[in-house]
Structures are given as structure tokens and as C-alpha cells.
């Protein structure tokens, strides 16, 4: 039982972070708060991968002449780190596009509240 907790507590903290991020994304009304939630959610996924890459008693995945490369148990898993480099870039790109959209919305409606924006959008639809 205790072994199980020690082996999994890191994942549980990551899942708490995910729930916080998802809460921000789907329940908050302010567009920028949604983006903050999105950022937390993406970072928690990155933490999830990196936590899984760990190996007790291993070192960073840079070949060390003193250790040699014959024994994989001496280096932590390099693949999730590589994947997460890509995921970080995807997160940055999404954030850039999202901020561009927020600026455009604010310029046109002078508001960032989702319910108010939707109300105004429907009102404009009816007048057309």
C-alpha cells in the first residue's frame, strides 16, 4: 500500500493540476482566465510525461564516458523529454494565436467576458 502511494503520488499531484487547469478553461468566463487555465493544463501534461520518464538511480540522458552507454538503467528515459520539447512549442504557438484573438476581440467589443460577448453577438445576429 505504502509502496503504491510512493510510486504514484507524483501522478496524483499532476492530476490535481490538470483539474485546476480544466476548471479554468471550461468554467471561468473571462477569456484571459481561460487562457491561464489552458496554460496550466498543458504544463500539467508536460509534467505527467516527464514524471513518467524517471528512473531511480539514473542520470541525465547525456552520454557520460565514465558510465558508458551499454546499460540503459544508468540514464533516464530520453524519449518523453524529446516529445515534451515539441509539446512546449505547440503550447507556445497556441498561446500566441489565442492572445492575437483576444486582442482582436477586445479591439472590437471592448469586453473580455464570454457571456456578455455571446449576448452581444446574438443581438447583432438578430438586427442583421
Amino acid at each position: 500500500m505504502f509502496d503504491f502511494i510512493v510510486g504514484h503520488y507524483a501522478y496524483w499531484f499532476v492530476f490535481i493540476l490538470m483539474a485546476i487547469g480544466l476548471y479554468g478553461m471550461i468554467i471561468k468566463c473571462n477569456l484571459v482566465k481561460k487562457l491561464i487555465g489552458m496554460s496550466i493544463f498543458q504544463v500539467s501534461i508536460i509534467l505527467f510525461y516527464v514524471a513518467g520518464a524517471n528512473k531511480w538511480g539514473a542520470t541525465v540522458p547525456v552520454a557520460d564516458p565514465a558510465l558508458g552507454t551499454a546499460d540503459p538503467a544508468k540514464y533516464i528515459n530520453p524519449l518523453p523529454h524529446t516529445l515534451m520539447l515539441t509539446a512546449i512549442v505547440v503550447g507556445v504557438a497556441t498561446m500566441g494565436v489565442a492572445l492575437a484573438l483576444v486582442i482582436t476581440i477586445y479591439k472590437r467589443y471592448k469586453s473580455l467576458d464570454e457571456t456578455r460577448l455571446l449576448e452581444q453577438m446574438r443581438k447583432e445576429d438578430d438586427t442583421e
Partner: protein
Amino acid sequence: MRTYRPNPIVSLVSRLVSPFIVMFALYVIFHGHYSPGGGFQGGTLIAAALILIRLSEGNEAAQLQFPRSWGTPLGSLGVLIYFGTGLATVLMGGRFLDYSVLHLSHHVSMSRSYGILMVEIGVGLAVTAILVSIFDNLLEGNPDV
């Protein structure tokens, strides 16, 4: 339109720090083979140095360092370096991104190493140019500036 008031301390420190950031970024890119680092990390650092100057010296002065209109074409150039490396491997008769057919060196492994370096340079250039261009565009679209 907000007015810009120069602050001598901020200006001096950022001017002083910026070249060192660029130097460290180049180290991160070119030493990425032997220590943690690589194109994306280095490119982000160079972009940070350029954006630091944009923030402290004002947008107009910073145009002398990296004009706004360079962003999109230079970013495409960076991706083109990466893509071109892959295209060269195809033209040399290998699979896409198989650097061993490029014959950059006698040893296959060194050839791959140089291939990786070329690719990382492309990544660094693209990331630098595009991050700066995203910053410029966000600034330009901002209604308060």
C-alpha cells in the same frame, strides 16, 4: 498613445546584458550536441534578447536592430533550412531526413552529427524570427499602444 520616457538604468542594463544573452544562446545552440540545449532553447534566448531591447529602448529604436518586416520571411527561411536538409537527403537517394546519405564526412556517424547541426541552426533561426514577429504583431494589434 502612451508616451515613452527613457529610464537610464533600465536602458543601460538591458543594453549591457543583451549581447551576453545572444552569446549564451549561440553556445546553447552549438553546444547542444554535448550538453542539454539545442535549436529551440537557443532560439528562444536570442528572441528574449531582442525583445528585451524592444521593451527597454522602445519599438522605434529596436527597429534598427531587427526590423519588423524581417520576421515572417526569416522564419520561413529557418523552416526552409530544415526542409531543405530533408529535401537534399531525398535528392541524394535516401529517405526523408536520412542524414547518412549526405556524405558530409567520411564517417556515417559524423555525417549524421553535421546533419543534426544544420537542422538545429534552422530551428534556432525560425524560432527567433517567429517569436519576435509574434511579439511585434501583438504590439501592433494592441489598441492601447
